[in-house]
């Protein structure tokens, strides 16, 4: 008895190629891929590389939507190749191109250095004044679930660069900080353990900074992890304006819990006896 095999169909892939050693400008190459239900764009690319053209280059790693390596333009929308099922976006053709607003290294590989540079620029780490405690911790920093909720959404960023590719300001403005850096600046400012609002304020309140976002909303629309950078940026503008109008309440950063202050711990559960006599 023949096992039920899923039906296959032929999908045409139009892929933008560019080889820095031979080409002056990108060009489009056509491939035909046998696709069955459940195959992702990443699977299609592997099939092309293994059976048709081994020179095709693109980035990938986890193949499950958590590393952010495989972001590319799929049918005009920047998204992850591993997360996108071929038959969900087309039944005839797919157009693949590298992420726009980044320089191309080769084929579908963008140069993400500007993304990381701008991310580093906003000091994406907890900034505090108690350096002794940070170097030699005596306890955890106390944070309630409500305080966590305020910034948790923005911690899911995987730095894939799709938001920067979709942003209209990034299309023309090389110096714009971009949704990734700005959303992460807000994530750290809002973390109750952080005391770096004053420092980051001066980093984002610059020409080509946060006020060059005009809420086109494309970054949030394409984000593969639901981070909603547009929301973070608008909330950060609110903070900056309230701070300018001297209406912002500045909270002290979270304190380290001394062992005497610890909240009531669950009673120790006694382990069952060993089943194997030593």
């Amino acid at each position, binding site marked *: 008895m023949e096992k039920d095999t899923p039906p296959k169909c032929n999908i045409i892939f139009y892929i933008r190629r*560019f080889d*820095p*050693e031979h080409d002056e*400008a*990108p060009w489009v190459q056509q491939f035909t891929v046998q696709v069955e239900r459940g195959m992702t764009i990443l699977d299609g690319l592997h099939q092309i590389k293994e059976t048709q053209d081994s020179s095709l280059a693109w980035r990938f790693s986890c193949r499950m939507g958590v590393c952010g390596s495989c972001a590319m*333009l799929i*049918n*005009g*929308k*920047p998204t992850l190749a591993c997360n996108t099922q071929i038959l969900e976006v087309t039944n005839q053709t797919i157009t693949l191109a*590298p*992420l*726009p*607003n*980044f*320089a*191309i*290294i080769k084929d579908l590989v*963008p*140069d993400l*250095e500007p993304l990381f540079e701008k991310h580093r620029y906003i000091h994406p780490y907890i900034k505090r004044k108690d350096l002794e405690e940070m170097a030699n911790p005596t306890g955890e920093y106390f944070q309630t679930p409500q305080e966590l*909720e*305020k*910034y*948790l*959404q*923005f911690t*899911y960023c995987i730095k894939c660069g799709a938001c920067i590719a*979709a942003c*209209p300001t*990034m*299309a*023309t403005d*090389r110096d714009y900080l971009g949704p990734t850096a700005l959303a992460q600046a807000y994530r750290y400012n*809002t973390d109750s353990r952080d005391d770096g609002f004053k420092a980051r304020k001066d980093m984002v309140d610059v020409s080509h900074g946060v006020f060059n976002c*005009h*809420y*086109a*909303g*494309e970054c*949030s*629309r394409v*984000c593969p*992890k*639901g*981070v*909603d950078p*547009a*929301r*973070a940026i*608008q*909330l950060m*503008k*609110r903070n900056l*304006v309230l701070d300018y109008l001297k209406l912002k309440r500045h909270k002290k950063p979270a304190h380290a819990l001394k062992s005497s202050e610890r909240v009531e711990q669950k009673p120790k559960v006694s382990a069952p006896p060993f089943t194997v006599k030593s």
Partner: protein
Amino acid sequence: MGNVKRYDNRLGITGWLSGGRWGVERYLYFIHRITGVGILLFFMMHIFESSLRVFGPATWNAAMETLEHPLFKVGEIVVFCGFAFHALNGLRLILIELGLAVGKAEEPIYPYRSSLNTQRPLMVVVMIVCSLLIVAGVYDFFLGQ
């Protein structure tokens, strides 16, 4: 990362016009820019034209005669419609950019809902009011003809 040649893949100004398949808010952003620049250019001329009133009724009426030309009449309606859109969309943007219409941070659970979903009712209301104003303006225009 070495001296490998890079190809600059920035979209440029066409990225303002055609970066791919977009949501409504992206198009509203573009129209907002166009209407803003248009109103500014109109305003430059308007300052000079309306200051003619200090020269008395004769000069004023002569100027108004000139402005009866159909080109100016059409321009007037275009400016009115542009203003209606820019003002109402601007109101929406003020609410959004002051963090009043984007909602609170919430744990992303697939299918993701973003601030775009939160502000969508506001956007719909704003567009409806804008259309009503444009209808009122065009109707009033023909009333006066």
